[in-house]
């Protein structure tokens, strides 16, 4: 009996001791909490391309490049109704996927400061500036000062303040890249997928971003002189900021989101899914790229930006109507249009542009045009077109032909703002930046001669044009109702309220 008792007590002591694990095990043993900056930058740059896509996904329809084949079928792109969406992916891509990875509570800037790698700090800030600029251009007012502060209901800063912040980020970025620490971690091509650690190119890119920013406001801030200096400065050292995808890859993560595989690398935003297969080129787009319809003479870029359709026809679909357009010839099918996928910008391995040089030429052209330097404007304008033709691989002879065609202004007398804006629109095909331009010009036919109001935009919008995206319904409207109410963003027609630079724009007529 004794022995049993002793044994029992011993047994108890042993098992209780054995069963005692430590309480300090609330860390994930198979995931890191920090890695070197060189292992953070590629992800940020890849996400930047996704982020720009998430904006362009809708902007390409709002800026009249594309329309759905079925017509009246997509609430956002055909009826301009953003009230039924669950999530707004572009909000997440800016704040989380790009922004938080740079400047968030576990962002690259922290490690860069620890390492003393101010080169990464500089590049990070420039990318953050680009991300903020593109995001505020589609969202308008949004959190800036209180971002990443731990607050779930940060104040929304006016777009004007965000623009100031972006300029400050650019200043700081350029500054860091002008005095790299001796012991900063190196930035090889494996870490910097854009410029392979060429800091001069980064500084020019920062200046180019600044030129884009200043263009949005120059018309009401009397800023053309300053803009012209900036853009000239940018052009001097600029090299295209492109995110490249491998020629061949079996991974859906390594493909351009406009590509024909419609890669869907694991995020559940239903509406962010590219739908070129079920979209058609608009009549606006086809008119812009048609030189002589009767004789089937087209802009040489047409069959670079698109592919011929099955029936070798070149119809254009009316915005929001698609095949429902009653004026289309009877029996028209999608095969009577050019195909949008697998073309220059829409292949799986097409590079994704952050910013291309043509944009700078057209910024310059527009600024000079409004500064009454028509000669300069014409030159820059023609440089922009020519640069774009060359980029798309048009042969020299064809370029000469096109540059002399009726589609291109030949003299300062001919040159109108519409020439500049339409050529920029073609050059920046599928980039959200052209939606900015269109809104700056109030969707006016003085700048975009072929625009018209979409038939299926809901009647309740009262003939107004779409001006912005809605904030992410799944988070902002839940956590920050006061700010949403202050801005009036809960209204059904919130997306028709122009953002700051559009509201103030003097270019609308």
């Amino acid at each position, binding site marked *: 009996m004794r022995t049993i008792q002793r044994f029992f007590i011993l047994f108890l002591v042993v098992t209780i001791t054995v069963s005692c694990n430590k309480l300090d095990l609330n860390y*994930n043993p198979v995931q890191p909490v920090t890695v070197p900056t060189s292992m953070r930058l590629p992800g940020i740059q890849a996400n930047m391309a996704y982020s720009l896509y998430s904006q362009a996904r809708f902007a390409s329809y709002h800026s009249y490049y594309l329309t759905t084949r079925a017509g009246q079928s997509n609430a956002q792109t055909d009826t301009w109704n953003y009230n039924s969406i669950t999530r707004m992916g572009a909000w997440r891509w800016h704040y989380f996927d790009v922004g938080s990875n740079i400047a968030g509570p576990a962002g690259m800037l922290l490690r860069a400061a620890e390492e003393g790698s101010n080169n990464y700090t500089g590049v990070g800030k420039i990318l953050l500036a680009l991300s903020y600029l593109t995001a505020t251009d589609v969202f308008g007012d949004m959190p800036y000062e209180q971002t990443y502060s731990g607050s779930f209901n940060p104040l929304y800063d006016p777009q004007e303040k965000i623009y100031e912040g972006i300029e400050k980020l650019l200043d700081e970025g350029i500054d860091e890249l002008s005095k790299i620490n001796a012991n900063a971690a190196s930035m090889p091509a494996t870490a910097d997928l854009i410029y392979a650690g060429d800091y001069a190119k980064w500084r020019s890119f920062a200046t180019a971003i600044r030129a884009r920013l200043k263009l949005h406001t120059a018309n009401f801030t009397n800023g053309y002189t300053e803009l012209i200096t900036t853009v000239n400065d940018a052009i001097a050292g600029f090299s295209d900021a492109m995110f490249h995808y491998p020629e061949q890859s079996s991974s859906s993560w390594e493909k351009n989101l406009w590509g024909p595989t419609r890669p869907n690398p694991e995020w559940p935003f239903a509406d962010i899914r590219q739908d070129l297969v079920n979209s058609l080129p608009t009549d606006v787009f086809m008119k812009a790229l048609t030189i002589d319809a009767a004789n089937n003479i087209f802009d040489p870029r047409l069959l670079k930006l698109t592919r011929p359709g099955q029936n070798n026809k070149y119809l254009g679909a009316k915005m929001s109507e698609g095949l429902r357009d009653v004026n289309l010839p009877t029996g028209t099918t999608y095969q009577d249009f050019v195909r949008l996928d697998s073309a220059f910008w829409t292949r799986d391995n097409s590079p994704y542009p952050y910013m291309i040089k043509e944009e700078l030429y057209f910024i310059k052209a527009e600024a000079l045009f409004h500064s009454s330097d028509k000669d300069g404007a014409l030159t820059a304008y023609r440089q922009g077109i020519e640069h774009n033709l060359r980029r798309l691989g048009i042969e020299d002879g064809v370029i000469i032909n096109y540059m002399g065609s009726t589609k291109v202004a030949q003299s300062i007398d001919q040159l109108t703002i519409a020439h500049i804006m339409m050529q920029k629109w073609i050059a920046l095909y599928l980039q959200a930046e052209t939606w900015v331009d269109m809104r700056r010009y109030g969707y006016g036919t003085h700048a975009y001669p072929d625009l018209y109001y979409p038939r299926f935009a809901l009647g309740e919008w009262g003939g107004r044009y779409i001006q912005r995206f809605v904030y992410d319904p799944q988070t902002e409207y839940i956590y920050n109702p006061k700010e949403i109410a202050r801005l009036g963003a809960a209204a059904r027609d919130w997306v028709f309220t122009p953002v700051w630079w559009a509201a103030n724009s003097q270019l609308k007529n």
Partner: protein
Amino acid sequence: MKRTLLMFLVMFFAASVLHAQSVTIKGKVTSTIDGFPIVGASVQVVESGVGTSTDSLGRYEIKANKGQTLRFSAVDMIPATKVVGDALEIDVTLDATNQDLGEVVVTALGIERNKKNLTYSVQNVSGEDLRKSNQGNLINALQGQVAGAQISSSGGSPGLPSEIILRGSSTLTGDNQPLMIVDGIRVNNSSSNFTVNRVADINPEDIEDITILKGAAAAALYGIDAASGAIIITTKKGKAGTIKINGGYKTFIETMGRLPEQQAIYTTGTGGIYDEASGSSWGRKFRYDEPIYDNLARFFETGITHDVNMNVTGGTDKLQYYVSGGYRKAGSMVPNTDQDKISLLMKATAKLSEKISLTLSTNYVKNNIQEGLGGASAGGWINSILTYPRRYDILSYERPNGEPLYAYKEEEDDGRNARISPMWGVMRNPRNNNVERFIVNGNIDYKVASWMTLSYRLGQDYTMSKYRTVITPGTPSADYFTGFLSESNTASKYVTSIFNATLQKKVLNDFNLSLVAGFNSDYYEAQTIGYTAEKFLVPDIPSPNVTETNRITESQPRRQRYAVYGDFRVEYKNMIALAVTGRNDWSSTLPVNSRQFYSPSYSGSFTFSELFDTRRWYGKARVSYAKVGKDAPIYRTNTNLNIVQTVGGGFVVNATGGNPDLKPERTEEFEVGTELSFLNRRLNIDVAYYRRKSIDMIMTPRVPLPSGYVIMTFNAGSLWNRGIEASVNAIPVKTKDFTWSTTVNAWKNTSRMMEFAGDIVTFKYTNAQLNGGSAATTLGDPVLGIVGTDYRRTEEGYVIVDANGYPIIDGIERNIGNREPKFNIGFLNRFTYKNLSLAFLWDFRFGGDILNASRQRMMSVGTAYDIGEWRDKEFVFNGVVAQEDGSYARNTKPVVLDYTYFATNYYQVGTNFVETINWSRLRFVTLGYSLPKKWASRIGVSNLGIEISAQNPFVITNYSGGDPEVNSAGPNAGGSGASTMGVDNGAIPLPRSFSFGLNISL
């Protein structure tokens, strides 16, 4: 065995020899309590074993010899014996046992208590009642049997989980479900990847009974997780005596229950225009020569299930054992889905010495389930069937050579964007969830002295789970057209270690003091190795060996919790009981400075019937208060980086951010109740009222992106639940041959969101944001709300119609529904007549809304029945039109209900898809017959029973959809969603099934 047989023979022999001298004794058996006759009391000649029982007047007649002893016994009565003398009439009065209401129930931490002195509400469900329901998932078997338990299954396909909530929802994300305890140890009831809730692995045949600790006070000794109550499952154990062998076989036939209806008028197209390319059914009318398929009827089949069980029990005073085995091969009404389940349980209790006893058990379960279509994390999957155009035959999905047969494909498309019957997915892209599970459990009791017992329990629930999905090449999909395979293998274990010291002492004769002090360690660990493989090189071999790209991931969650606790009770006579418990928890999942918390409870009961010298009735009042805490999910205090597969690789911030400021969640609960018993325990009533407050709820929802994260765990707010539960047990009729016993469970719970962190006013659940509306919680409103839009209305509530004759949408979303039923009743009846038995459970639900997103989906795609009824018809909306002077006039303008109306008006409005539901449902009815003993013994068995049963044979409801028991995302929804009870998003309706069973005992 031999010895008993011998004894039997000797007795038989003796009885027959003495037969000649027997006399007939008559008499009456009455109760001392009320003087009423006792019906069905057993009268037995001790020497010969001959027995009879009393009739409805308490009378008996038996043959015996002089000098033999008669033994009189009845339920809850102290047996009496009389020696047969000269008198031929022997009347007997039986005294009630001292333990009237002397039921012993298992309470927290396996402490057994006399129900009489309990100071809080518990409810017991016997294994018998559970089995009568014939449900494979024991959570479903509890439907209607527990007052206050809201159970909703996610649908009628094998492997779909069921959710049980006690006393209302207590968190908006994460698990609302009670703690699951089997034989004293915590077991896994998780439901990840939308697979079955794991407690369904337990074989219902092995269950002795289930005790439900509903309130925080009852479960306070469990500390963490007690906030949602606890379900304590006790399995059968061996009984000393001869070996008993019991075997059973059941077979089920399962057919589809209640389905939504479709229209059969319009074919594919959009906006009224025929279009073959469109998946919508908004085209022109079907021509007379076009076939219209009844795809819903064609899709579902009749499923057949076989279920075999056997158990052996026996032992001596020193050693008792119970061994059981079960095998279930379940088919289903959903094609290509099934379940294959084996369970083995061995349990032995040994008395090592006078003072020490040891119980060991092992339970092995293999549960392989093949489930239906994937992609169900945010809804049932039959949406694809409900919306499949009826011009296509759902059964034509593959070519004879096994390649996909597309219903529609554009010329230049290789199939990526094609349309195919949902049957393709069901047949070719199954999901498999294979589980092997070992639950081992050992308990040693050491009775140090008459007043002191020490016990130690060590148990482990070890689960190996494999979850696998395959997407066969050729399946229309942008990403997975060339094949996709995903598999995860998880080995998880819960290790529970409990040491208890129980001290019990009677002082001053009338006072009974007891103290339980203990220590508990609870460790959880899992390792998941998963892989995904894409691009099959050999289409019919889904293996990473033959795919182009593979990717492996690993996860290793761990959690350690410790607790010390004490439970001190004072009982005065049997009249007053007071109890205080305290428990201090330490959990690894909380930040260091807030990782421990204390959970007290105070409770008391007053048995006022003791004041009267009566045994005819019994009455007790009880009151309790408890405050318990809950820890956080694992690894939520810091942020990790994840590897990315984008060009250049590297790392990015994990979407789920860490929160170093987490604090424990608290639940406070106050409960009062009474237990009453009348008519010599033939009528028992238990009523409880509770108020529960959940404070600083820990949630893990999507958070605003400017925080830098997508998802985060934080203390998000407070809410309360209040409710009343009543359970009435009655035996209205009890005669020798016929007994009717009935249980009515009725309950009502209301809730309110009291406080949100920050500025949140309405919180939508991530997994139930649908086009018609969202499952959501709004500040100041009931917790299980629905948020959506309504029409613009006048102050009197009339819908405002615009000048064109269409109602105007009010774009502002508001709370438009409450998914919690207003009132629930479970009405269980058991009848026995001689060898026949009949049991059935009616289940009533009054009120509570359903968000019918399935209908919204069917409307928008044009397959809804209502589209057929209303499309292109002229209609005058019942509403008012604003006049220029500001007044309103009745709308008289007729309009046509065309596509544009439905698309831009009708199905944009949430209130069109919220329905207030009542139902009356026959959950089950089971008719059993056991062969009379005489006949049974003739064929060499001690008992032979057969039963026929029906489960869910019919439901009467006002719901417009399928079966109104819906829960779109199931419990927990992978850990990120709240209860989606009352959300119908492609729910697979509950089946109707019929079963036949055979049971043999040796």
